[in-house]
């Protein structure tokens, strides 16, 4: 994605601000737009109202209500290694839709120009002329999807790529079969909340034997104040298929904290492969830790079939707090799970992220590469679990978690858990924590690089195992993002 080029043109003004203040958040603007908004508060009526607004069938509403009732019996988890001010679930508006899109536009030309402009500014052109070749984008603005590109091209191959609300209408059987099959509504507190009030997200279905020629992608944007975003994504890859899916996200700069609780479910059948990449850049709060998004995400993939593969790649660079453990259930024999992560925290951000690999099938393999970088006064945690079930003969896991500390007020913690219940398993884990190497900086500076250039090069090298897993355009983006975030941290 050539988001960078477009940014250059469009954000001349913001760029100026950036150089002045060091490292401002480029995507912090607010779009003034009329919205259809449910007032703050959460009860059964609100859940039904969301369902009604989306014109959902009754089974969907019942499922939401069941989830809501279950959520009420649950307690907010406080085991992550960070503190945050309590969330008032009744002070959040659970549905915000730009008014003009209430009737779903048929083509991109019908989409509110204000929204097109917003996404343009974010570097996501949606109109026919400008849209990115090679990447199909579903753009989600607050609670609804405002447009999906390349849909007809994909339809020719039988690929379904649409907002999940549309899938509920058009492909109810598929949704009913798979929704909640990997992350049941009772899975955890935030998954239950999401199941009750989820608004939009993407639905992908790759039929048997199809290799998606396009990268599928969703861009999530929070715009409205005092609101939350509860997206739900469901990706199903049938036998022998392949898909690469990308996700990006931003939000305006605000002094209040906003809640983002998403659920992503992936299902890979025999010989299928799903590659899921995220570049997360929610607004992370200011230097004093004021404002920012609370990011509570449940992501899980299920390797249902034999020889299937699910790969998670994430670059977590935003959000005031991040609570996210994309995992894989390796059920099919010979299935493969991968997790590549870069988590960068600065200012007063806190990230508690990692993965879970559950080995059930024989000869299942998993790889975990996690790189944490903490700077300023931030707190960065890796928390992971590798579980080898008694049935997982000859399972293999390799994990590597490295943390780098930039600055002397930050902290980095590692909490891996390994449970092995089969003696034919081989599990290796290694982790290290160290400061950015002064000798390396000195060497680079002596070769004429400035300190920031040197730091950026070192960080790049530190993260290269993860970046090389990202699609090329995303990798470039990720590098820029880290550079921007780390500006001024060293020196």
């Amino acid at each position, binding site marked *: 994605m050539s988001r960078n080029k477009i940014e250059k043109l469009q954000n001349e003004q913001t760029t100026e601000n950036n150089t002045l203040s060091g490292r401002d958040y480029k995507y912090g603007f607010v779009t003034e737009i009329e919205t259809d908004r449910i007032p703050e508060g959460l009860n059964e009526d609100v859940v039904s109202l969301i369902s009604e607004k989306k014109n959902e069938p009754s089974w969907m509403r019942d499922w939401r209500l069941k989830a809501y009732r279950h959520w009420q019996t649950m307690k907010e988890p406080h085991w992550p290694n960070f503190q945050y001010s309590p969330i008032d679930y009744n002070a959040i508006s659970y549905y915000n839709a730009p008014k003009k899109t209430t009737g779903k536009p048929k083509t991109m030309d019908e989409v509110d120009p204000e929204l097109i402009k917003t996404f343009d500014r974010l570097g996501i052109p949606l109109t026919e002329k400008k849209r990115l070749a090679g990447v199909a984008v579903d753009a989600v603005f607050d609670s609804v999807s405002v447009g999906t590109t390349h849909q007809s091209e994909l339809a020719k191959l039988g690929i379904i790529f649409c907002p999940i609300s549309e899938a509920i209408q058009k492909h109810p059987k598929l949704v009913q079969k798979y929704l909640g099959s990997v992350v049941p509504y009772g899975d955890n507190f935030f998954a239950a909340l999401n199941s009750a009030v989820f608004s939009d997200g993407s639905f992908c279905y790759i039929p048997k034997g199809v290799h998606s020629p396009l990268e599928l992608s969703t861009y999530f944007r929070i715009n409205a104040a005092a609101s939350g975003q509860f997206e739900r994504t469901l990706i199903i890859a049938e036998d022998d298929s392949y898909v690469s899916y990308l996700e990006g996200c931003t939000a305006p700069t605000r002094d209040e904290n906003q809640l983002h609780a998403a659920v992503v479910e992936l299902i890979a059948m025999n010989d299928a492969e799903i590659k899921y990449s995220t570049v997360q850049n929610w607004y992370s709060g200011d230097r004093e830790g004021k404002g920012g998004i609370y990011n509570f995400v449940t992501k899980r993939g299920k390797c249902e079939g034999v020889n299937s593969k699910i790969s998670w790649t994430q670059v977590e660079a935003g959000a005031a707090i991040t609570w996210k453990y994309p995992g894989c259930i390796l059920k099919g024999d010979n299935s493969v799970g991968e997790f590549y992560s870069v988590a960068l925290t600065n200012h007063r951000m806190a990230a508690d992220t990692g993965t879970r690999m559950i080995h059930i099938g024989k000869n299942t393999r998993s790889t975990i590469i996690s790189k944490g970088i903490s700077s300023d006064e931030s707190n960065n945690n890796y928390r992971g679990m590798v579980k080898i079930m008694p049935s997982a003969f000859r399972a293999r896991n390799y994990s590597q978690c490295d*943390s780098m*500390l*930039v*600055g*002397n*007020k*930050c*902290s*980095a*913690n*590692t*909490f*891996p*858990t*390994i*449970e*092995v*219940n089969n*003696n*034919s*398993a*081989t*599990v*290796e*884990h*290694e*982790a*290290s*924590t*160290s*400061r950015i190497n002064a000798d390396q900086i000195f060497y680079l500076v002596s070769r004429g690089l400035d300190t920031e250039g040197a730091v950026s090069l070192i960080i790049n090298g530190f993260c290269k195992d993860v970046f090389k897993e990202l699609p090329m355009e995303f990798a470039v983006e990720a590098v820029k993002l880290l550079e921007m975030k780390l500006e001024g941290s060293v020196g």
Partner: protein
Amino acid sequence: MIRNIEHITKSLIDERMPQWFNTLRIQGLSRFIETGIPAVSDPNWKYTDLEALKKLAFDVSENGELNEWELLNQFRNHKDINIVLLNGAFSVKHSDLDNLEKGVLVSTLHEAVKNNAPHIQERLTKYPMTDTAAFIALNQALNGPGVYILVDEKVVSNRLIHIIHVTHPGRQNFASMPRTLIVMEPFSEAAIFESHVAFGDSRTYFSNALTDIFMNENATLHYCKSQKESLKAFHIGHTRVWQERDSSFDGFSFMAGGRLTRNNVDAVLNGEGANARLNAFYSVNNSQHVDNHTSIEHRVPNCASNQLYKGILNDSARAVFNGRILVRPEAQKTNSYQLNKNLLLGSGCRVDTKPQLEIFADDVKCTHGATIGQLDEDEMFYLQTRGIGKNAASRMLAEGFLSDLLNTVKNAAVREKLNSLTRRSFEAS
């Protein structure tokens, strides 16, 4: 779990003891009642279920005479200074304190308290009771006479001091509460071996040991805790090490026995330049359960800590490892290393390992690792092509797995003892 715990604690209160010591018992009791026996919902006990221990009712009093004098000799070595405790009681006739070197003081802990040994109150109350773990509190409430060892300033003790806790109660369901306090004065050096042993596997008992070690500046201690209890016994042990400037703690734990074993080693590096080594080997068979917890707290700059925990699991044995390294913001230039390696030989065995790094300083080097695997197939094949039978080959490789660990033990006497103990455990399996 302990019968009439309140009544017993009260009966242990001795008017001849200083008031603060009696208060410690009461505080321990109330803390234990407050915490209760930890359940698996407690993250520190997630993989070790104490339900079986909870169900049994133990008695603390035991005055059975030990007649199997010969059996005791298998643990004693005349080169060493042996300190024998039978069912928690100090046995003068079995110990040889006459040979103590000058400057090494050994007595029961209760005697030391009664005689008001220097700083004893300060040391025994060093750790606040408010956040004490359940079983430490239980030991505080019910501990027996215990052992007190003080190595005086600039004294180098050349002979190995061997504390032998023999538990062989006359009746079942006995609870023993061994308590040890070791004080290393500045510039002193010693080697201390603490064994927890039993005669055979017939008795059901519960041994809840607590050892406190204080290392003053420049002190060096070679310490080993070895444990081979009855296969029906429960062993829960805590070793707390407090280290001042430039002190060096070279510690080893060997765990081979018991139905359920939990071993906690906590070190606080409180003086610059201190270094701690906590190594361990565990070897478990059948349905034995062994749980190792370590916690190292780096409070000041320029300290180093090393942990190497290795285990061999046979049959359907279970092992748990949880190692925590905490580096406080002031503790710059910390070097900390931790590795847990498990060799799974049995078909039903299970390992749960959970290393934890919590780092709040930036100029540090901390690494940890964990591996779980089997004997290398190629190595097995190689040995077999050289005409070595399968069993012998696997034993050879298992011994190789262990040997680099034993080589880290610096003190020759400690290493020799460990060598013979591990050899015995290989023969048994």
